[in-house]
Structure formats: structure tokens, C-alpha cells
């Protein structure tokens, strides 16, 4: 088997890690596998920040050149998704992240390191967890953002493997 990847989210003040999450929905709560209908975001407010990581398992020698961007999906009026790579975990809140808007092209994609800060994830390396660094994501709105669900977005994760 070559590498297998899954997504992980960390929550709470204790940085509780949950591997194998099923979605990265934004909402007005700090929780994984969040149901948006249960945690609506008021127009003009922000979602809670999400701290997600990719985790590599199975068999590989090295993972490198990890990139992340939004490749499709229109943003509605006043809707912004912010993103930062290799972020330091902090208790997720709805305060504005201050991060830039998520890149929308491969050329401007966020470059991810390993969780340990290296440019590569080496299989079986000493102290290597298999996680990427944190991606910090947040949905921000304005009072002019229309009510209802926002349009679906397509995200792209790219990496090189040997």
C-alpha cells in the first residue's frame, strides 16, 4: 500500500485531537463533524476557527511539497474564507483570525510543513507523527451576506510521494 491520508481536527483548550473526521463544516461552535443547522452563523459574525491537519499512514518513504487551496466554489456576498498554513494551535474562537483569504490557485497555494516543522514527512523517522502542520480555516461574513447555506466549495490538497 502506498500512503493513506485522512483528516484530523483539534478542538478545545486542551487541543483534543480527533482523527478520521467526516466533514469540515463551519459553524458557531468549536466541534468536529459539526452539523451546520445546529450551529448557525449570524450574518456579520464569523465561524469558529477550525484547526485541521492531514495525517499520513500506511507505507511511504517521504511526503513533500504539500499544498492546499480552494479550487472551485463561488463565495457569496460578504463571504470570506480565511486560511493559514502551519498555524500554532490556540483554543478555537469566533474572533476574526486575521489570516488572508484562502488561495484559489495552485500557484498561490498554502505550503504545508510536517507537524514537526519540516518540509517533508519521513516515514518511520524519529519523532515524526505523520501529521501535516495545522491549517487554520474560518468562514467570515458581513451583515450583507444572504441567509441560508453558502455554496459548496471544492478544496484541493496536493503532495508529492515516494
Amino acid at each position: 500500500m502506498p500512503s493513506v491520508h485522512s483528516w484530523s481536527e483539534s478542538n478545545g483548550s486542551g487541543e483534543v485531537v480527533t482523527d478520521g473526521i467526516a466533514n469540515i463544516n463551519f459553524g458557531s461552535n468549536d466541534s468536529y463533524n459539526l452539523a451546520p443547522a445546529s450551529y448557525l452563523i449570524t450574518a456579520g459574525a464569523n465561524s469558529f476557527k477550525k484547526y485541521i491537519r492531514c495525517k499520513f499512514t500506511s507505507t511511504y518513504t517521504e511526503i513533500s511539497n504539500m499544498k492546499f487551496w480552494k479550487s472551485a466554489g463561488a463565495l457569496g456576498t460578504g463571504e470570506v474564507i480565511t486560511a493559514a498554513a502551519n498555524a500554532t494551535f490556540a483554543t478555537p474562537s469566533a474572533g476574526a483570525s486575521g489570516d488572508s483569504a484562502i488561495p484559489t490557485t495552485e500557484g498561490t497555494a498554502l505550503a504545508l510543513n510536517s507537524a514537526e516543522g519540516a518540509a517533508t514527512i519521513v516515514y518511520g523517522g524519529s519523532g515524526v507523527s505523520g501529521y501535516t502542520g495545522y491549517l487554520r480555516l474560518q468562514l467570515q461574513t458581513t451583515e450583507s451576506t444572504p441567509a441560508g447555506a453558502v455554496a459548496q466549495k471544492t478544496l484541493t490538497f496536493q503532495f508529492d510521494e515516494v
Partner: protein
Amino acid sequence: MVNTMDINVREADKTSSLQFYWLAELKNGSIVMQFENGIENLFQEVKDRFDELKYFVLYNKNYIYNRFTVDLEKGKIYFQDGYLLSSKDSSTQEKKNIRLIYFRRHKIDFGNNLEEQNHSIVYFLGLQYNDLRGNNYKLILQIDSQGNWSSGE
């Protein structure tokens, strides 16, 4: 060069999501295969023996004649029975310090539910070398899972 019968006999795992597997032939004639008797060998085994490499082959797991061979002694890349020649390449140009280039590039599109909408794998295969003046050249093929390829430097 590597015998296709040898690939047939020794390769055992066709369940992998990969369409192309690698094998390496060392200067002493021994062969290291990515999948051997159902067990995957790490590419690390090749990395650790770069100086001993003679050929590095990337072959289609369902059609072994669809294969690309990097000759690390001559600095050539062969496709099936012919060989590829880049525009900057010259059969008379002396090549030194020939090094293998190989990796797979995964590109995964997904939505908020994390389900993959698309997962492409492109195989980057090639070599780089120095000429007598020390200039560095690269020749890289990009091969998709259908075996379509393009070359670049």
C-alpha cells in the same frame, strides 16, 4: 535490461491504487521491486543505493510492456522498445553525475464532507546530469495513470 518475465513472476500485488509500479536493477544484476510477493518495498531501499543503480523502471501493473526505463549509466529514458530524446539532449554529449528523479504527485479535490471528488496521480520520472562544463540538465517525464506522458526539462 529488465526481463518482463521476471516482473510477471515476482510481482504479486495488483490491488494497489497505483497504476504504475517501479523496479530497480542494480549494477550487480540484482533487482528491487516495489511489490514483491505481496509486500511493498519502500523507495528508501532505492534511495539508499542510488550509486548502485543501473536501470529504474516504471511499468503499468496491468500491461508490463507499457513501461518507462531510465538508464542511469547512459543517461537515457526508454519507452517500451524505443527511446525518448529531449530537445536539449544529444547522444554524443558526455553525461556525468547522472541522478534519478522519481516521485508521484497526488492531487485531491474534495468538498466539505471530505469525500474525494477527484484524485489524480501523476508520476514524475526522469534524470538529471552534468555536462563536462558542469552545467546541470534535467529531463523529466510526467506520466498520468492512463500512461499518457509529456516531457520537459
